[in-house]
């Protein structure tokens, strides 16, 4: 019950913060939250949050319904496979995250244009550079979040955290 309540409040707060950051920096906090809680919080809750947030964002941003869900679902699958090859805790693990963020920022406009207008959009160098910059900034935020989780981690239980 408490988890459900936290989930609902989180969705409202995330929509607020996401809308603000999207307007100011065209930067997504939601995708960072997803990566940060993925495999750290029970999967059913993670996917429920992504589903609710995805539909909410698709609605308010006038995107095709389910676009966020599909893109994040596919990218999380790839991330999971990448983490098999490159451990999440290693420094190279952040390269996998960079790929994840860059793909997210690229796939969203491509998917929107393909589904709504049936046109593959032109990828300008400007967009590619901005995607990379946003990916690197997201990595920076992720590192800070990882450090935060590490500080919360119980010394006796290496893999689990108190939030779970």
């Amino acid at each position: 019950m408490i988890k459900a309540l936290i989930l609902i409040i989180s969705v409202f707060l995330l929509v607020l913060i996401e809308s603000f950051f999207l307007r100011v920096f065209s930067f997504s906090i939601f995708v960072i939250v997803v990566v940060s809680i993925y495999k750290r919080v029970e999967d059913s809750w993670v996917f429920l949050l992504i589903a609710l947030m995805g539909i909410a964002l698709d609605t308010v941003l006038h995107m095709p319904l389910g676009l966020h869900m599909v893109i994040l679902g596919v990218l999380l699958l790839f991330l999971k496979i990448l983490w098999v090859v490159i451990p999440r805790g290693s420094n190279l693990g952040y390269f996998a995250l960079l790929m994840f963020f860059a793909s997210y920022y690229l796939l969203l406009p491509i998917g929107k244009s393909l589904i709504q207008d049936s046109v593959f959009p032109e990828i300008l160098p400007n967009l590619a550079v901005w995607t990379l910059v946003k990916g690197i900034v997201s990595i920076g935020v992720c590192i800070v979040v990882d450090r935060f989780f590490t500080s919360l981690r119980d010394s006796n239980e290496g893999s689990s955290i108190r939030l779970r």
Partner: protein
Amino acid sequence: MKKLSTKINYNQVIFLFLGILLLLLEFTSFGSVIKYPFSYAFEPIYVVANDAGESVSNWGEALVDASSYIDEYNSMKEEIARLKGDNTERILDYEEYQALKQHISVISQEEKYIESKIINVTDTGEILINKGSKDGLKEGNIVSFGKVFIGILSEINSNSSLVRLPTNSSSTYEVVVVSGKVDLNKEFRIDSVIKSTGVALGDLEGIRIENMGINSNVSDGDTVLIRDERVGNILILGTLIGVSQNPASTHKNGFVSPVFDYSNILTVFIRIN
């Protein structure tokens, strides 16, 4: 562990399947049915956050573009200064037009005048004008505005001249006092309406008038006219005020309030013949 892995995969597959299903529903009318409650709940939040983001974004852009705003501000200051200059020039042109119009309506057409601008008014009862010997001005020329006496040219340079006002301490003029009710435009025979003669003396406090007849019925509000051989024509000096009421005195004194505040005049006319 194996069971957990299977459960995770199952969740992820369901999630992907649900996403694809929603994408397909987007193409049907059922998509808008799903969107409606989300729109109802989240649109207000989105609008508030978007507005806040926009204001922050505007401030950020303003800070980034601060240097361009400074340049724009400086160029606008220059533009304002230029427009003020143009405006002042037009006001001066209009004032000159009005002055000429008034002057021409009251002066004799036989006399020749030169129009001049006042450059400066001194504390000693003199004004500097922008016309000089190059324009044919000579010492002693009478400066007036319509029928109002302004002064006499006391010093001439090639491009500027000094006009000695009646308020200057070295100014003395023979004057006559007539009733304030006399219409000077209609009355041609001034002698018949003179109340008294007198002498106007310049003073830093104003223009004093002395030697008015003790038996004359001059009073405050009467008009003081200059009738001096140096001036030639009869011109208006001002209004009589502060007439002395001392019965022991052999004459009456008073002050003359000029028609104009000399510091407010912009244009004057110099009679050159």
